């Protein structure tokens, strides 16, 4: 990295960050995307599809592309997954072993009587069984839906109910704490497979995964899936109503492979580490599928984020491509800077070639920090659960504008649009630097094919021939996109999208609560944290003891990742004439921002 850009004063008092031009290293493999304009101009999805192996008898299967095809391309005995346990012991799983493990799992689903297309859920930490369950389910033509293990019982239950879970793979402890209490309310949940219990230790109604797998053959089990067959169900939160299950199909692997190449610059010889948990879409698309399809070796760390441990892993595993999130980068920024590089300077990071970030906009300070302290810039990129893969990215061969999400990848048409609230008509905004909604032209293979059982909510995402992302952004004159905020009330905390309705519903269950509103307020490390404003029923006193009782209730129901970190009391929450709580107004007041249009305000905050 040749330059060390510093903010400079633009025309107004606004700080602008200098564009970073990169110097290539002669000892690096050439970038997969060397000429952006040529790649965009000559792009065709047909060519991208043709790069996949396809099933021997026709059809397409993600697990075949990720695992079994490597049995015949010389990579069979290469390490596919290097799994690091919490105590840092490691287990290597080769492509050949992964093919056998996933075949066993595929046969197990068949033996259990799980039908094609039915849903297999996981509620697991990052243990090897998570990866074999994911790929085994895909291999069998069943649908995989990973849940984040830090969810509380309620987010777990609601997602499994909406997704009509037939099988759950989990651990004994997670089952006891988060599933057993409500198991009887989901009669469709036929099988619970536990990763760490066997024999007499098994709770009633559960099976030992290891015992069940031991009886299954270690080859075959591959289903003849078609490109449009449902493969993955990823849940995302809504502003109103329950979580939405975004449906992805086997053809999504076209985009996983292509974006792994172009946005992450993955090469077959790479040691790649995606720190995202597969409970979120990044951890599946780029923490399981893309690196394996491309034949790389991927590192999986079972432990939670710990800056010193992470630096040690980057050094010891000789990681070359690292995909992580702004919250983690900001934690690293606390332990080292250019004047005091300390532990970062003492760590050998010379194997690193490409750094990427996703989850929320990466602040320009973090891009500059990584240049100064690590010697490489972080490349921010943008996508959503619904898009299935990276859509807009800072690529290795293009200059970085710190704070920007980059430019649309080849094959992706992105625009800033404006929707007329009265007619619903969508107009493209061509004038640079004009705020509007970020929209994508439908048709890329990893686009979601529906929200499960909710065709109306799905239809609402499209208008005038565009997919409307719900994110507000602008595009500058050079074609770089800049995130501005959400068009709705969604909260983005530590890179995770949290729906206010889910938080409010849990609070409303508490006897003391008459009404509740959840909003996101800025926090330096997580970006935003969830804050709840609560109005009480008559007879309840707004005191510290009740605040703690509400926090405790919300945490028990939702888990720490979704529950509010702060709760304040109000006598009344501002509402519209139709009784809708005005979260946007509450947030503006909380942050001292302009209140905007309050013409619909009927009953104000007290």
């Amino acid at each position, binding site marked *: 990295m040749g330059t060390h850009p510093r903010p400079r004063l633009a025309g107004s008092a606004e700080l602008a960050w200098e564009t970073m031009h990169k110097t290539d290293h002669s000892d690096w493999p050439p970038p997969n995307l060397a000429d952006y304009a040529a790649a965009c101009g000559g792009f065709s999805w047909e060519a991208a599809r043709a790069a996949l192996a396809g099933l021997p008898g026709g059809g397409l299967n993600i697990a075949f592309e990720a695992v079994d095809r490597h049995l015949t391309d010389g990579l069979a005995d290469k390490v596919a997954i290097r799994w690091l346990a919490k105590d840092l012991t490691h287990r290597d799983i080769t492509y050949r072993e992964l093919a056998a493990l996933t075949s066993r799992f595929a046969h197990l689903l068949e033996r259990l009587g799980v039908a094609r297309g039915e849903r297999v859920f996981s509620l697991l930490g990052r243990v090897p069984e998570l990866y074999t369950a994911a790929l085994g389910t895909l291999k069998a033509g069943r649908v995989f839906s990973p849940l984040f293990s830090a969810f509380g019982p309620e987010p777990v239950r609601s997602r499994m109910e909406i997704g009509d879970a037939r099988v759950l793979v989990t651990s004994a402890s997670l089952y006891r704490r988060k599933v057993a209490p409500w198991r009887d309310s989901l009669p469709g949940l036929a099988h619970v497979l536990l990763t760490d219990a066997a024999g007499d230790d098994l709770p009633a109604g559960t099976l030992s995964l290891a015992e069940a797998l031991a009886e299954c053959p270690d080859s075959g089990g591959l289903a003849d899936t078609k490109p449009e067959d449902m493969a993955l169900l990823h849940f995302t939160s809504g502003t109103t109503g329950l979580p939405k299950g975004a449906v992805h199909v086997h053809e999504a692997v076209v985009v996983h492979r292509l974006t792994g190449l172009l946005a992450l610059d993955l090469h077959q010889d790479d040691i790649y580490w995606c720190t995202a948990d597969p409970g979120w879409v990044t951890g599946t698309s780029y923490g399981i599928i893309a690196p394996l399809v491309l034949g790389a070796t991927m590192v999986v760390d079972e432990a939670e984020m710990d800056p010193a441990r992470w630096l040690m892993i980057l050094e010891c595993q000789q990681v070359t491509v690292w995909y992580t999130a702004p919250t983690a980068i900001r934690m690293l920024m606390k*332990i080292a800077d250019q004047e005091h590089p300390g532990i970062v300077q003492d760590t050998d990071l010379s194997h690193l070639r490409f750094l990427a970030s996703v989850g929320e906009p990466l602040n320009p300070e973090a891009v500059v920090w990584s240049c100064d302290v690590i010697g490489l810039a972080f490349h921010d990129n943008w996508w959503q659960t619904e898009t299935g893969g990276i859509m807009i990215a800072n690529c290795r061969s293009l200059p970085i504008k710190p704070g920007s999400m980059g430019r649309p990848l080849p094959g992706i048409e992105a625009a800033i649009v404006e929707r007329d609230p009265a007619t619903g008509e969508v107009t493209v905004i061509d004038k640079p630097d004009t705020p509007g909604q970020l929209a994508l032209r439908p048709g890329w293979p990893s686009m979601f094919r529906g929200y499960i059982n909710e065709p109306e909510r799905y239809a609402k995402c499209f208008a005038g021939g565009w997919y409307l992302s719900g994110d507000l952004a602008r595009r500058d004159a050079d074609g770089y996109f800049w995130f501005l905020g959400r068009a709705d009330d969604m909260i983005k905390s530590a890179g995770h999208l949290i729906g206010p309705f889910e938080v409010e519903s849990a609070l409303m269950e508490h006897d003391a609560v008459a009404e509740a509103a959840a909003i996101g307020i800025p926090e330096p490390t997580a970006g935003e944290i969830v804050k709840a404003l609560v109005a009480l029923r008559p007879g309840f006193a707004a005191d510290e003891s009740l605040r703690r009782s509400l926090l405790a209730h919300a945490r028990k129901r939702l888990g720490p990742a979704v529950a509010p970190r702060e709760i304040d009391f109000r006598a009344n929450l501002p509402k519209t004439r139709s009784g809708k709580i005005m979260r946007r107004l509450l947030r503006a007041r909380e942050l001292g921002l302009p209140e905007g249009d309050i013409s619909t305000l009927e009953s104000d905050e007290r």
Partner: protein
Amino acid sequence: MTSHMTRDEMTAIVREELTNVAPDLADETIPIDADLREEFDLDSMDFLNWITALHKRLGVDIPELDYPQLTSLGAAADYLLRATDRTKSS
């Protein structure tokens, strides 16, 4: 206020600040050597908030690189007792 504190007293403070951050643990029995993040569903933000609260309450600097030492109530109490000793003697 931190002088002559016993391990039990320090553990009580550590526990109190933890249940301020995670009030859902207030009626739980937390074994003194139980791994908090592992067994009690604390996430990174909870952990940071807890450490910030301990820093404010005790006036002890807890460098980020020392965070992994505060895995349990007992380990946190021991760390903070050592740290308060250092503060006094310097």
